[in-house]
């Protein structure tokens, strides 16, 4: 178990193959959780998995044995329904034993289906959408005023951007010139009822963020060679940055990809074996 306090290779070359192996492990955990007693939000967990692995293994300065270390970079999972991916990534990173993942949703465990700070490595309870960017703004503002070097990251769902509070927070981040704040959007283009563009249009998304005073960049949310440099690069001085990560809901399990039905699932034994086989075949 690693206790490193900085990114694995902060200045060096990214090893996409190693990251892919970790991401595969995370996705396997997500499917196992989905096959558990309470099911989980599989589609959005699989779309976010590579972003989380890139952050926790190559970007965030964290101490898994000292989760509340004051020098840490903060991460807020605003799309809290992707708890299975977050818990799995935290377990792989060494915040708590992988074996604990089996307790997801169990009454004698601490792994609530939406994240809670009782879990090592979780900063805030999230799950009601539209809170995470405001939390990140508060963290970034406090760090900046205290002269601390912590970076702040927040991962938002794309459907979540329909919540008005996201834009209250976006306005305040730009107003206070929070150049220690990076938002990442898991742009998988699906919400429960269907396509985000059919249900409540988000485009022109980049223009909207720019109009709110943010620096905007894009990356393939499943390509570590693009994701890691994009996440490592801090915002230019003077304002916050948003990375729009193009992703695929259900990514990694061919028959779940791009399907709104993957949003939440409780996998029976056969469905679990089929999904696991598809995941491994595609890896």
């Amino acid at each position: 178990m690693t206790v490193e306090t900085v990114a694995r290779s902060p200045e060096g070359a990214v090893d996409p193959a190693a990251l892919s192996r970790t991401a595969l492990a995370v996705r396997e955990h997500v499917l196992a959780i989905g096959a558990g007693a309470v099911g989980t939000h599989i589609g959005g967990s699989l779309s976010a998995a590579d972003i989380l692995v890139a952050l926790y293994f190559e970007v965030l300065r964290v101490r898994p044995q000292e989760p509340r270390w004051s020098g840490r970079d903060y991460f807020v999972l605003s799309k809290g329904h992707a708890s299975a991916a977050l818990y799995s990534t935290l377990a792989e990173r060494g915040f708590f034993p992988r074996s604990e993942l089996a307790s997801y949703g169990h009454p004698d465990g601490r792994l609530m289906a939406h994240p809670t700070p009782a879990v090592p490595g979780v900063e805030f309870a999230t799950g009601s959408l539209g809170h995470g960017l405001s939390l990140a703004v508060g963290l970034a503002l406090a760090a900046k005023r205290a002269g601390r070097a912590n970076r702040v990251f927040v991962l938002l769902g794309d459907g979540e951007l329909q919540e008005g509070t996201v834009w209250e927070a976006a306005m305040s981040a730009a107003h206070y010139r929070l150049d220690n704040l990076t938002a990442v959007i898991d742009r998988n283009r699906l919400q429960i009822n269907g396509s985000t563009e059919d249900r409540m249009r988000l485009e022109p998304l980049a223009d909207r963020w720019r109009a709110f005073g943010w620096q905007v960049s894009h990356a393939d949310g499943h390509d570590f060679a693009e994701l890691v440099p994009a996440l490592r690069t801090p915002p230019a001085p003077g304002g916050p940055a948003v990375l729009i990560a193009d992703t695929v809901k259900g990514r990694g399990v061919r028959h779940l990809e791009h399907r709104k039905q993957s949003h939440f699932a409780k996998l029976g034994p056969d469905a679990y074996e089929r999904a696991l086989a598809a995941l491994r075949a595609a890896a």
Partner: protein
Amino acid sequence: MTTTRERGAPARAPAPDSDRAAYRATLLELARADGRVWCLDSDMGGLERQFEAELPGQYVDLGIAEANLITVAAAVASTGVLPFVNTMAAFASARALEQVKIDVAYHALPVRIVGTHSGLSAAHLGPTHHAQQDLAIMRGLPNMTVMTPADPAETVRMVRASAYLPGPVYIRLGRNPTPPVYTDDADFTVGRAVRLRAGGDVTIVAAGALPVRFALDAARRLAAAGIEACVLNMHTIKPLDVAALVEAAETTAGVVTVEDHSVLGGLGGAVAETLAEHRPARVVRVGVGDAFCSRPGSHEEQLAQCGVSRDHVVRAAESVLRGRPDVRISTEQGESP
């Protein structure tokens, strides 16, 4: 019932004529002494002239966006900052309720939410700005301490006492100038009622500036008729002073509650629930009926229309003493006990 003198020096703040002015002066005093004390504002007017001008590094204006305001406060509090959040009671308790519930209360963070214009004190501004449900809402949130002062001097003591409480706090202030109830050196302890007047016939439990004033005035009128009323200032709605209420139920004929708030779920609700479990007694609630206040008027005029006045308190006390089962507080606007 006992109260303990607050530690520290007696008030040296000026003698402001409103709870809001007293709050602002005390917040500035706290922030000068402790850099962790921040003022988070929402375009409320006044704080920018005093607090921001002197301590800009401890002041943040989040603009007219109360939901973001509350969540940002929770996040800065998680880093060790002690934020006082300034908005109107109506917006803190309703518009930003989910942020208060999840980001502040669920995380048990030391955010001090100060809601002004509480009850009907926004008066002619109307129900968009009235907050007649905020006590019921806030006391329903786990971890939350809920308080409302009786006058500017008590505001000073309450704000000081709140600064270092471990969890979230909601302080409910009115909008208007309020006459003094206390001298500066009165006792104040969070969760301890203050007995403002002794009396063995009936107990009047009040919270907030006008309700406490009405209770004291009603007690004087009752005394002229030979009825001695004990008056308790229940400045802390949660945690409620159970011992004081049990003592009131045991030593007097019953309890009248008085509040600038709906009769549903606020002080009266809390007192009735508590006594029903601990020491059943007759309770009559004087509060705003279950309706929106639809006519313009002064604060006192609107309260009277809605069921809260000195007369209502007197009649409620008399009904407690008569023990008449048919006497009740209607939940409809304008009816009286």
